Every structure is written in C-alpha cells, then in structure tokens.
C-alpha cells in the first residue's frame, strides 16, 4: 500500500508537529508501507522522510524541477521523481497513492488536501483521506467544511470522504481498514 503525505515545509513551527510527523514516518516504515511525498528536505516533509529512512522504510519524493534546482529536495530519499511543474507533481502523487494523509501545513498542503477531497467527490480518487489534526490545527477547517454542509454546498454524506484523527496511531488504524469510497460518484456529485 502506498500512502501519500501532504505536509508543511516550514521549520519554524511548534515542535509537537515535528514529533507527530516523525512518529508517523516511523509507524509507516514499520508497517512496511510505501510512502510518497512532495520531496522536500525541511519542515514536516523532511521529518516524515527522515523517520521513514531511519527505520529502513521506502519513500519516494515527487518534486518540480525548479524546487530541485533551488536545492529544496530531500537528499536521501529512496527515489525522487522530477516533474516539470506543480500540477504534474500533484498528478504524479495521486497516481501513486492508495491513501492520503494531510499533516498540518500551509496553503500548499491545504490545496493538496482539498484537491484530494474534490477528486474523491468526483470518483477520481477512491482511497482514504486522513487529516492528522495535531494540536487541533485543523479545527477551523472542519468548521468551514461543516458550514459548507449546513449551507448545502456539500452533501452531508460527503463528510464521510475524510477522517479527522488526533494521533499517528489513529492514522495507522484507519490505513489498516483501507476503506475505499463506494458511493457512485456521478450521483453524489449532483447537488
């Protein structure tokens, strides 16, 4: 099973986020899962990659060529796929992923997470979408998603497309269930 991680590239964040990222990387490697991520060497992306590698796991980075030229790539990953641009990077990550996990992050992470939800709503991605809500980071996003449902911009059953969990252990629990989205996408997409 290949798990795709979306996460921050910032290093200036609370250490608790880094601890959770390292713990998740360790658990993924020990569970013998293949990990895919955005290829960054720092921030939570870097922490996940470091911990996967320290535990003899496999991790593939997917990074646009301009980021590699800037030297933002993780130097030690098992493999690195060099994409021409950001759009191709996301396509590549989704094409490899059986499940996605969003850790805390900025607008790039948010965009990847919401694209995952959008693709799942349209039946173009069927894997689990797990949000690791360390320190309740995603509280306001879950409120916002609830607002969408309340205002009927999103159907109530769409809320089943993602799982919000507090700890890396719970991430692993959901991954082990490996639920796939069985709703008929075309019917559920009609609002």
């Amino acid at each position, binding site marked *: 099973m290949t798990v795709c991680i979306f996460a921050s590239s910032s290093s200036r964040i609370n250490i608790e986020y880094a601890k959770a990222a390292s713990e998740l990387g360790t658990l993924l490697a020990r569970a013998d899962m293949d990990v895919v991520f955005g290829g960054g060497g720092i921030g939570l992306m870097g922490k996940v990659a470091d911990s996967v590698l320290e535990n003899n796991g496999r991790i593939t980075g997917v990074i646009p060529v301009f980021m590699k030229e800037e030297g933002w790539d993780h130097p030690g990953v098992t493999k690195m*796929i060099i994409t021409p641009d950001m759009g191709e990077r996301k396509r590549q990550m989704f094409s490899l992923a059986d499940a996605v996990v969003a850790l805390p992050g900025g607008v790039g992470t948010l965009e990847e997470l919401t694209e995952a939800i959008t693709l799942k709503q349209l039946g173009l991605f069927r894997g689990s979408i797990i949000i690791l809500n360390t320190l309740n980071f995603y509280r306001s996003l879950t409120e916002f998603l609830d607002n969408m449902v309340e205002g009927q911009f999103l159907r109530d059953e769409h809320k089943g497309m993602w799982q919000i969990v507090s700890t890396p252990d719970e991430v692993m629990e959901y991954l082990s269930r490996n639920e796939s989205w069985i709703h008929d996408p075309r019917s559920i997409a009609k609002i």
Partner: protein
Amino acid sequence: MALAVNDSNFDEVVVKSDKPVMVDFWAEWCGPCRMIAPIMEEISNEFSGRALVVKCDVDNSPGVAAKFGIRNIPTVLYFKEGKVADKQVGAVPKNNFVSKLNALF
C-alpha cells in the same frame, strides 16, 4: 526504437559502444518518464547509426541504477567512450536533450 538495457547487458551495450549513448533511466510508475519516452524514440530515430538511445528501467536494474547513483527519475546519462560525459535530470524539452547529445560529436 530505444533498446532496453539492464544489469546484465549494460556494459556490453553502453560501456563498450563505439558511438555516443543516451541512457534514459525510467520507471513504469513515473509520469514524467512517460512524458519523455516519445522524445527518446524520436531522438533514437533521428540519430540512427550515429548514436545509441537506450532505456533502463530502474526497478529491473538495481545494479546499474546504484552504480551510477540514479535516485532522480527521469535521468538521462550521456556516455562517450564508455564514460559518463553529461547528464540531464527531469523532463525537459527535446532541444535540451538533443543539444547535449550533439556536444558529444
């Protein structure tokens, strides 16, 4: 057509070649690798008889990939007289690949 090379025939085909060789390191699950595959075919045809264009699947050829430190894909290595003469990482326009090959003549 771009010939497939692997751990067992790499030395024979690439290192011992008397013509310049482009080796396209790729993998089935790599989107950008699939994007450049048709470019490699074109270059192979255009340089037929003058240079060799080959493909090396990194999953099936761990020995070669490790020997040349291939971690980024797609990576194209240019060989001249059995030695690495140049390198191109990532999916870039055809002209970039061609100009590096032309420089070997």
